């Protein structure tokens, strides 16, 4: 191990030295500030440092008042979605070395700020709730006590199931920002997860489609693809929404036949 480290040192002397990173962090403490401001921090980086590591380091070593929401630190809990260098990303999933400096760190746009990098999420949870993201079968299970899903049917929802409710997509979506009645990409991707689940039965599927079809539902998607671009889990809410609106229209045209 020591020899490899030494050879690396001689090959790239600059990289071996302690590198620094500059972060412009959005600060707002309601008890102290009338208005948000930006504070600049300089920190030493290490190999593989994520933006969340950097923020924790700032909090530990420079400014204990810096507030950031985080939990699992491995892109699973979805609590640290931030606006980093103009894009919604998970701070724990973004390498400092990949970013242009100074690194601009802000709370998710279009959400209200509680303190520093922490945003008010209840509005987002209301949107998620509006699509009724829970299992609603319209019949008793065919065999035994459990509703069994076929592997083929499960494949449809493989990607959308990965959603970690981080709100990065909803923050990036301009129709969701200007229209509070629009559930937004995350909620519609969640709706797609249940829409595609054949265990719920045909009746529930129709009811779900009708519910999503109202004038502030799926038709408000303008295929900006922002949600697809920012999703840390590579879900494409745009694709899910387009598939549902296509099905809804197909259903309507069927009356003619």
């Amino acid at each position, binding site marked *: 191990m020591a020899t490899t480290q030494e050879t690396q040192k001689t090959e790239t002397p600059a990289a071996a030295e302690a590198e620094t990173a500059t972060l412009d962090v959005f600060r707002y403490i309601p008890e102290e500030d009338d208005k948000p401001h930006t504070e600049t921090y300089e920190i030493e980086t290490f190999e593989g440092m994520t933006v969340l590591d950097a923020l924790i380091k700032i909090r530990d070593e420079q400014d204990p008042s810096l507030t950031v929401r985080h939990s699992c630190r491995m892109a699973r809990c979805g609590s640290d979605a931030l606006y980093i260098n103009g894009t919604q990303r998970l701070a724990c999933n973004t390498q400092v070395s990949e970013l242009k400096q100074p690194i601009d760190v802000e709370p998710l746009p279009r959400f209200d700020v509680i303190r520093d990098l922490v945003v008010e999420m209840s509005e987002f949870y209301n949107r998620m709730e509006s699509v009724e993201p829970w299992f609603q079968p319209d019949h008793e299970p065919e065999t035994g006590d459990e509703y069994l899903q076929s592997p083929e049917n499960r494949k449809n929802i493989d990607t959308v199931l990965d959603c970690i409710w981080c709100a990065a997509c909803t923050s990036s979506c301009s129709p969701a920002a200007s229209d509070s*009645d629009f559930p937004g990409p995350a909620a519609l991707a969640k709706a797609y997860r249940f829409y595609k689940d054949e265990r719920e039965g045909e009746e529930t599927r129709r009811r779900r489609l*009708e*519910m999503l*079809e109202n*004038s*502030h539902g799926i*038709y408000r998607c303008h295929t900006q693809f922002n949600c697809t671009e920012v999703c840390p889990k590579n879900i494409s809410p745009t694709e899910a929404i387009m598939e549902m609106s296509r099905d809804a*229209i197909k259903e309507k045209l069927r009356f003619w036949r």
Partner: protein
Amino acid sequence: MSTKKSNTAGWNWFLQRATGVALVVLLGFHFAVEHFIVGAHHITAENTVERITYGVIEGDHVLGQISINMPAFLYQATAILLLAFSIYHGMYGVYNILMEQDGLKKYRAQLKYFFIVFSIVLFIQGILIFLAFFEPFWEIYDPR
């Protein structure tokens, strides 16, 4: 998100797409006739009458001397469809932009009626323009 059933949203949305696709052809044809064959600065009341009443498209522009004899009803159909579709597509588009704004939430009902009335007014104006260059009508109506 309200669970109130409003299935018109789907139909309106579908019509927006259908008229959009039709407009690619209709408006393309309109540009081809008025700008590419006739040339906008050669347009007069006389050749407009020729087109609308008789379906005769005549022009001497960049492409040279061109004369196309269309069945009159076909040209008239494209003109009326272009009018109706462009008003629907344009007004429903603008209406939707306004519907998406939380700030205008209070005025949603009023905006809806405004756009319906405004679209009808535009359509009537368009029909009157059509009639102005439709000779059988204009011969009777012409104020002079």
